């Protein structure tokens, strides 16, 4: 369990994190999302005591990080894969950390095995690839067999096989009842890994909800209806206060309805004796839902490339 209470961090005039309150529950993978500069890393750094909050506090397992006698046994964190002296071997790096927290030395071999670095454990970390460094960072996080795990961009630099391995690892850690908070910019990856989402922008919470709810909340999650009487159906839908779209590359007789279940639309059509030829749900991707949520809080935005790239779901008709 991670609890943030009115957490605030300011650098001069600029608030990196402002008044952030949330709880990360055990037993699931919580995705921590937000644009660059949203305050994700700062929040994670405050959770492990590297940065001091300007005000508020963040607790792990009900206690401040600095109060833990064996912090690595309570909280494992991968914040920065390259947080190891390049001249030291992975084995010595882990051994030192194990000694610092009274973790048996035998555990070093176990975590090296888990992350697949056993064969290169004696090599200097400076010679590692980005992906190997990432695996070492994960080994450090797992070393103390902690209840709470924080991963900042864990799949950075990993090959597709490694990405899948991380996803399975996160799922299994959460399955064991641990608290897992993962930040990532890879939305498709996050969509497959996370159960719950915590989205922040400009240091504030934009969403704190289960994955399904976040996706359902997107305007791109919508029902598609095909009917020979589109005008009649549209009138009835609008009367119910629903958002209806008839343009945007739709065929004649096609409607897109936002904010209603298929059942509601079907029942409504039946009541008004409007024939329906097709009724289907179009689910937004997490990426689309995320883009909508964060549209106003992107600090370092990129100019739009072309209208074609903006709406990947609607195929323009020629």
């Amino acid at each position, binding site marked *: 369990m991670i609890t943030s209470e009115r957490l605030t961090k300011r650098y001069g005039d600029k608030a990196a994190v402002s008044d952030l309150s949330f709880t990360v529950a055990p037993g699931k993978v919580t995705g921590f999302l937000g644009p660059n500069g949203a305050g994700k890393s700062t929040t994670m*750094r405050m959770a*492990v*005591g*590297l*940065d*001091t909050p300007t005000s508020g506090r963040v607790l792990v397992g009900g206690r401040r*990080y*600095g109060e*833990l*006698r*064996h*912090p*690595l*046994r309570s*909280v494992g*964190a991968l*914040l*920065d894969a*390259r*947080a*190891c*002296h*390049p*001249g*030291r*071997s992975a084995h*010595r*790096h882990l*051994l*030192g*950390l194990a*000694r*610092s*927290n*009274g*973790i*048996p030395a035998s*555990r070093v071999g*176990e975590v090296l*095995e*888990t992350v*697949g*670095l*056993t*064969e*290169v454990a004696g090599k200097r970390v400076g010679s590692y690839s980005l992906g190997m460094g990432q695996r070492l960072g994960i080994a*450090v996080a*797992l070393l*103390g*067999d902690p209840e709470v795990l924080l991963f900042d961009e864990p799949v950075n630099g990993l090959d597709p*096989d*490694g990405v899948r*391995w991380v996803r*399975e*690892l996160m799922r*299994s*850690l959460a399955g*064991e009842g641990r608290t897992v908070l993962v930040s990532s910019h890879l939305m498709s990856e996050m969509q497959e890994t996370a159960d719950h989402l915590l989205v922040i922008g400009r240091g504030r919470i934009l969403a704190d909800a289960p994955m399904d709810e976040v996706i359902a909340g997107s305007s791109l999650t919508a029902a598609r209806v095909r009917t020979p009487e589109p005008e009649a159906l549209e009138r009835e839908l609008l009367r119910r206060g629903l958002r209806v779209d008839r343009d945007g590359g739709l065929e004649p007789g096609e409607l897109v309805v936002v904010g209603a279940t298929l059942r509601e639309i079907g029942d409504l059509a039946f009541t008004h004796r409007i024939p329906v030829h097709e009724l289907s749900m179009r689910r937004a991707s997490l990426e689309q839902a995320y883009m909508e949520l964060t549209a106003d809080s992107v600090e370092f935005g990129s100019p739009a490339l072309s209208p074609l790239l903006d709406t990947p779901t609607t195929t323009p008709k020629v």
Partner: protein
Amino acid sequence: MTKTTTPLPRPTGPGRGGGFRGALAFEWTKLWSVRATWWNLAVGLLLTVGFAAMVGASADASAKKGIDVTMPAPHHASQAFLISQLTVVVLATLALTGEYSSGSVRTTLQAVPARGRMLRSKTIVVTAVVAVAGCVFSVLGTLVAAPLMSGHGDYTGGELLGTALGAGVYLAALAVMSVGIGSLLRSAAGTITTLIMVLLALPQLMGVVGARWLETASDYMPSVAGTVLLTQDHDPYGGGAALAVVVVWSLVCYGAGSAVLRRRDA
């Protein structure tokens, strides 16, 4: 590379280990697992012994020209520390600033979040290693220099021991100063430059200016006190005062480094 997803074993045992002892073991493991430590000790040893041999031989040469060079060999040989002290400065500085240049300080502080404890344990480990090295270097330097001085360097066991202890204490103080300034500046280049200024350049410059008070002040520079500790001559003050001078320098540097480390985000 194998990719396994073996389930993690049971949680590790209850609240044993960790704490200050854990932090000491951690620093010990870190110190010896990088090459810089071994290199600096090896170079320090070579420089001390090599320079001791050189000054020993030159003393004999001077004696043959009729210049009185009689001085106990341990004191004569300890001139070598003028140079080899820098390897100690580099060793202790890198033990601290290496954490910042590599980013490992973030891992270190996650393992030992109590910053005062982290800095104390690092300082104790580095200082202990350097103090032992100082004693050993001094004795070896004497043993090499004495035969080359051919009778002009007779010494007693007390002088040998006194110089060895003085070398240990002086280098230990330099290690504490290096760790303290390193924590303050977080950069190896800045720390080493600062210490070279303090140890070598400033005492010279202060004498050159010609101002009386500067000359007096220069007596309290750490390298001047170090010379007293190494040679037990009572100029400009005795061993006790010299010890006090290096202790004060160490405490001031350590205190500054520690205060900044506690306040600053890592």
